[in-house]
């Protein structure tokens, strides 16, 4: 068991190192300086500009902002994965959440604090609903959740745009009216603390979600039966677990995490509902985050920070003459290397077999 655990951490780390190495190679091959990329990433994470010797806490705030939604969409993908479901629909569930958040923010009047909580709850509920649909279709008709969730992403996108244009009403066809302050997660004190960044109270529901996800999956009987379905559906059924119910509930909870991300973006980063010209990629980021995090809550926490750092560093890279899309290339390579897990694992065990004395001892300690 400890050996297995060691490998489950080793594989993502090897994949991350390979991913960054590949990114550096791409930069060198195209005549760009990988050093500037790494400096930009360092500045994005710590706010320290090594070359100029300055420190700006605004970068740390933006780093947190970038990590929050993908931490939630990562939790969403990871949670469903543990029940053996591939949730490519985090993007759509997130959009459903932001539609609900916009509706409650614009149409409901409530005192400060209460209003924001209502917004978060509505978004989670809408995400749960959007996730439960493919879950139910999978449980009832055995149609593959991958295709259904992909299609539902686009349904959510166009429904959002229709709502923004015709139901919420938009003067400029880009955004809705501004939300009342009571609905917002924004806080001037947090912004001032980080030199005017968009940092907001969104990190509270995000961190609670990480803990909740960990608790449900690892510490409850319900979570155990979810994992049992993920390991072996028929075995779980034979043991008396309600497989169909678990599939629907797992997708609903996964959807709730993604829906929450919609609220964190809509009422934290922004203060209005937005027309979306296309998918924003939070769902895809979530898949990367979940895979690197080994589909475990705390793994997701750290890998979301890693990818959040990459996202936060993008504008800095661009200003250093490094095309910011190198971040997507690195992210995709990491996912690809994780997907090659079987291959990498055989490679590692083959290396071990070649020098059993040295490497074998290391693995044993």
């Amino acid at each position, binding site marked *: 068991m400890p050996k297995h655990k060691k490998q489950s951490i080793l594989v993502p780390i090897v994949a991350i190192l390979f991913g960054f190495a590949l990114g550096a190679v791409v930069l060198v091959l195209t005549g760009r300086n990988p050093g500037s990329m790494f400096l930009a990433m360092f500045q994005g994470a710590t706010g320290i500009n090594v070359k100029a010797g300055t420190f700006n806490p605004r970068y740390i705030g933006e780093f947190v902002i970038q990590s929050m939604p993908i931490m939630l969409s990562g939790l969403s993908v990871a949670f469903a994965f543990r029940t053996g479901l591939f949730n490519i629909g985090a993007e759509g569930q997130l959009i459903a959440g932001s539609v609900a958040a916009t509706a409650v923010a614009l149409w409901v009047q409530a005192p400060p604090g209460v209003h924001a909580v209502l917004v978060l709850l509505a978004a989670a509920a809408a995400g749960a609903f959007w996730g439960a649909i493919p879950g139910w279709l999978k449980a009832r*008709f055995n149609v593959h959740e*991958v295709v259904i969730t992909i299609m539902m992403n686009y349904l959510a996108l166009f429904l959002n745009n229709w709502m923004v244009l015709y139901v919420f009403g938009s003067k400029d066809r880009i955004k809705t009216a501004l939300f009342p302050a009571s609905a917002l997660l924004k806080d001037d004190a947090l912004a001032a603390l980080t030199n005017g960044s968009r940092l907001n109270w969104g990190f509270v529901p995000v961190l609670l979600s990480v803990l909740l996800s960990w608790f449900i999956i690892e510490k409850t009987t319900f979570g155990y039966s979810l994992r049992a379905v993920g390991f072996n559906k028929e075995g779980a059924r034979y043991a008396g677990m309600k497989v169909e119910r678990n599939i629907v509930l797992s997708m609903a909870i996964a959807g709730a995490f993604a829906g929450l991300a919609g609220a964190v973006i809509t009422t934290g980063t922004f203060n209005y509902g937005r027309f979306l010209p296309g998918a924003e990629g939070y769902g*895809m980021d979530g898949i990367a985050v979940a895979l690197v995090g080994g589909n475990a809550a705390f793994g997701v926490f750290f890998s979301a920070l890693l990818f959040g750092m990459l996202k936060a560093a993008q504008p800095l890279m661009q200003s250093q003459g490094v095309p910011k899309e190198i971040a997507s290339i690195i*992210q*995709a390579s990491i996912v690809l290397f994780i997907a090659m897990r079987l291959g990498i694992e055989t490679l590692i065990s083959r290396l071990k077999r070649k020098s059993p004395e040295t490497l074998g001892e290391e693995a044993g300690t």
Partner: protein
Amino acid sequence: MNILYSMIPIALAYSAPLVIAALGGLFSERSGIVNIALEGIMMVGGFTAASVTVALEPISPAAGYWGLLAGLAAGVVFSSLHAFTSINLKANQVISGTALNILAGGLTVYLAQILFHQQRTAAFTSGLVKVSVPGLKSIPLLGPLLFVNASPPFYIAVVLVALSWFVVFKTPFGLRLRACGEHPQAAASMGIDVLRFRYVGVLLSGAFAGLAGGALVLTQDIQYTAVSIHGSGFIAMACLIFGKWNPFGVLGAGIFFGLSQALSLYAKDIRFLAGIPSEFFYLLPYALTILALLVFAGKAVGPKAAGEIYDAGKR
């Protein structure tokens, strides 16, 4: 009637890339490998086709067609990554496809910045010029719909549909390919090299999707941008399902979805559709695909072994 004459050719032009990419998906899934990277492959094909067209336009009048070929080749190269990870390294096919989609979005815009110093390729002057077929265009009724101002990729799509149908259902190669997607262990027991057939399936899907991406950008855009493909790869997946993994079904589904895209432009001019917001027409393909999946549910429609990692020892 005038609306029909201008709308149908546009609908057919929209449907061409969808049909071609869906045929690619057909070859891949029939061989047993799910390919959700059609979108990403189309991006790579579109970027390559646009770049080559921009480069060749000053010297060749057929630059657009060279662009299409280049897109096709780029699609093959890019899809080989999916083939390698999911066939040789036994990666989860959906994860590998997702990685390719993320990679394509990053790589194409990255290369645009290196080559053109902006977030998109330079604009080409004409791309693929619409054609009118002499003779055929004077057929009453059908002539103006099919042979005037037609998009060349639509003819390519129709030819590929017929060819694909013949290859998949009427040749030994097609039979073996389908066997690999239905029951690879049984195919292997008859001496069929499952891995090789799956490689061919995935590389063909790369060729088709790369070509489709090029066709889309060269007929519907003036340059390649990050949003040029705008989910067409996923609509192509929808075509494949809606068309029941059959080339002619794919053609029908593709034309239908092309029509729904064209309607979003023309609805305001058609009296009984005028009140419907264009978002409705955009989401139609996706909603119908979910419905189609429910109708097909429980029936053996798609390739049975698609998506499963090949385990030669399984019974």
